[in-house]
């Protein structure tokens, strides 16, 4: 039986950013199992120092090309918390709606374009356009809906234009909101078909007990602000985020890493779902059960399934939000902003997990200190420990190098890492 294996994946594909996987197994013993992050740092936290507060969301949204809306909203929330601004109900609802549409866009991109090719045995989505045209068309339909909604609410699907401290620069036409509502309702069959498709995928049988960190929902499944919670029982307030993230540096990573009760923890769709299952829309909860996902689930590959469940969640919740927004006349989109000395934290659940922005301002509203803690940087240590456990589990099974390589690649992809974001 084959008991040795060498896996060296340099610049893993179908993920955002640059990371390497190295596994070496000799005679059934794991000699090396590594996850390396080699992305170049961009130093956003230094760039902001000395800058006027209005620069923060504009510049920090550009940390990430996939979750720019989430970064912008976390940054805005941190500034507003520092200045003591409470968003109006209308602004809060529009922001969650915008956030939902980014979640849908990002999850669909990951599920269909980045993750599904592995389960269908191809290298990218391109051949699927020929072999599975209905699947690709469905993915494009869902993504287009989410992107169009982001354009209508945030002004632009990437690096949004209308989102500012204090609210929005302008509001969508109500007729456009009505159209989005109709398209959301029409997308439900596509989501159910997606669930049917993912039901047929063979999720690798792997499990490692993990601490999961996310926002804790009060009445709704949480996305913007609120308390912090872990499955190991840690409970913190939003402004205590540092006690939840405990960032440190380590050789082999240009990103920072995090730990909490154990040497590593996980954030993301699976963490949110594990911590907030009862807050899901009943239909989303049913689909979760249909796909075999009930909390607390410790299989990282199930993050794909959790993302799919969240697609259902955000679509149904968006319909509710649009109904609320259409139910009353538009109010002023933007409230005045008065800078003051102080500090503020914004915690937002972005597609890949909980994101924190922190700023400290002087009396003129200039940034003295900035800190951004990215979901993927919180996940890096957990990915590393998962790869070690995965290599250990398969070391004595006689699998081919390519099989172990694929399992490791799929494992990393399941976290949907945003590596350049994690290094920022």
């Amino acid at each position, binding site marked *: 039986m084959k008991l040795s294996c060498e896996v060296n994946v340099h610049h893993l594909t179908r993920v955002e950013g640059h990371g390497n996987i190295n596994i070496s197994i000799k005679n059934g013993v794991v000699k090396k199992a590594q996850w390396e992050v080699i992305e170049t*740092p961009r130093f956003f936290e230094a760039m902001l120092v000395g800058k006027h507060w209005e620069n923060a969301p504009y510049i920090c949204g*550009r940390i990430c090309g996939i979750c720019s809306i989430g970064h912008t909203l976390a940054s805005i929330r941190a500034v507003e918390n520092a200045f003591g601004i409470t968003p109006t109900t209308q602004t809060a609802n529009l922001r969650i709606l915008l956030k939902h549409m980014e979640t849908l866009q990002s999850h669909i991109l990951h599920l269909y374009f980045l993750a599904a090719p592995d389960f269908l045995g191809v290298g990218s989505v391109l051949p699927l*356009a020929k072999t599975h045209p209905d699947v690709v068309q469905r993915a494009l339909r869902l993504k287009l809906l989410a992107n169009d909604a982001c354009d209508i609410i945030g002004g632009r699907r990437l690096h949004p234009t209308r989102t500012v401290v204090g609210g929005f620069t302008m509001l969508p036409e109500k007729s456009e909101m009505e159209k989005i509502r109709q398209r959301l309702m029409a997308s439900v069959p596509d989501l159910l078909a997606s669930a049917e498709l993912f039901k047929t995928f063979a999720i690798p049988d792997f499990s490692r007990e993990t601490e999961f960190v996310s926002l804790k929902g009060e009445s709704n499944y949480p996305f913007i602000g609120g308390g912090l919670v872990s499955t190991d029982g840690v409970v913190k307030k939003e402004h205590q985020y540092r006690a939840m993230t405990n960032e440190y540096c380590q050789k082999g990573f240009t990103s920072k890493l995090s730990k909490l009760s154990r040497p590593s923890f996980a954030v993301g769709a699976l963490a949110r779902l594990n911590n907030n299952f009862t807050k899901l829309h009943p239909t989303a909860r049913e689909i979760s059960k249909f796909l075999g996902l009930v909390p607390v689930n410790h299989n990282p590959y199930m993050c794909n399934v959790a993302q799919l469940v969240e697609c259902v969640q955000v679509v149904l919740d968006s319909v509710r939000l649009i109904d609320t927004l259409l139910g009353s006349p538009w109010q002023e989109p933007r409230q005045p902003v008065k800078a003051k000395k102080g500090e503020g934290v914004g915690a937002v659940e972005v597609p890949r997990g909980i994101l924190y922005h922190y700023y400290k301002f002087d009396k003129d509203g200039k940034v003295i200190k900035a800190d951004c803690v990215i979901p993927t940087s919180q996940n890096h240590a957990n990915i590393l420990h998962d790869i070690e456990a995965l290599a250990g589990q398969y070391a004595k099974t006689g699998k081919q190098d390519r099989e172990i390589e694929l399992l490791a690649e799929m494992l990393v992809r399941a976290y949907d890492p945003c590596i350049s974001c994690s290094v920022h």
Partner: protein
Amino acid sequence: MSEPLSYLGVPLARPKVGFFELSSCEGCQLQLLNNEATLLDFLNLVEIVNFREGMTERGDTYDIAFVEGSVTRKDEITRLTEIRKNAKILVALGSCACFGGVNQLKNRFRDLDWVKKEVYGDFPIETMEVHPLKDFVQVDLEIFGCPIKKEEVERIVTDLVVGKAVHHPEYPVCMECKANENICLFELGEPCLGPVTRAGCDSWCTSNRRGCWGCRGPAEGANLKRLEEIMHTYGFDREIILDRLECFGGFASFTQAAPTQDKKSPARRKKS
């Protein structure tokens, strides 16, 4: 995907295309996937041989290389030189590649060690002053914007494939904004670089009542002095203008002569 394409009755060869990224948010590459309605047609126009963000297969021979991001570490110079060697046409994709983008904001600080320490403490980390691609290799075509406008990219790529010359608008965003019948943002109390920034985005931000931050760099003959007068008339101070001019690096040749905007922040890098 559909039938082979032709232009004016001449069948088109599908050029081999590679996408690469240096230091960036990878948003410009993502923008190419963000045009769902025309994505499959667009993909039919070219043969993608290298797109790490989207596919596992990789090839090292390509006609057109699209490079996103700026150069911020020595190994990126090596990668960029290699890409240049393999490509017939090298395209700088987005403002990071063209001007350094938001990444070059760290060049404001004279002391790179301070920058490193501010983020990483004493942990050793490698970085360098941020540069656009053209500082190291020949760039054949620049596509401006943060983010790039996908319709513009598709038009440019189509022009490349059919062998047409690629032209950028020489006029400023202000012209497009007026053509879109927007109320001038100055009248709404919003600072804006529309009068000096190169058009081509169809006044993307200003049509959403967001002042222009100049991500596409200067229009031909941009009159910065006049902009400053306008901004002054509407009560915006120099710091507000500078924040925007220096944000993406496109106006570097204009801002380097300007005084530092904040005496309390760490000393800014002076260009020799």
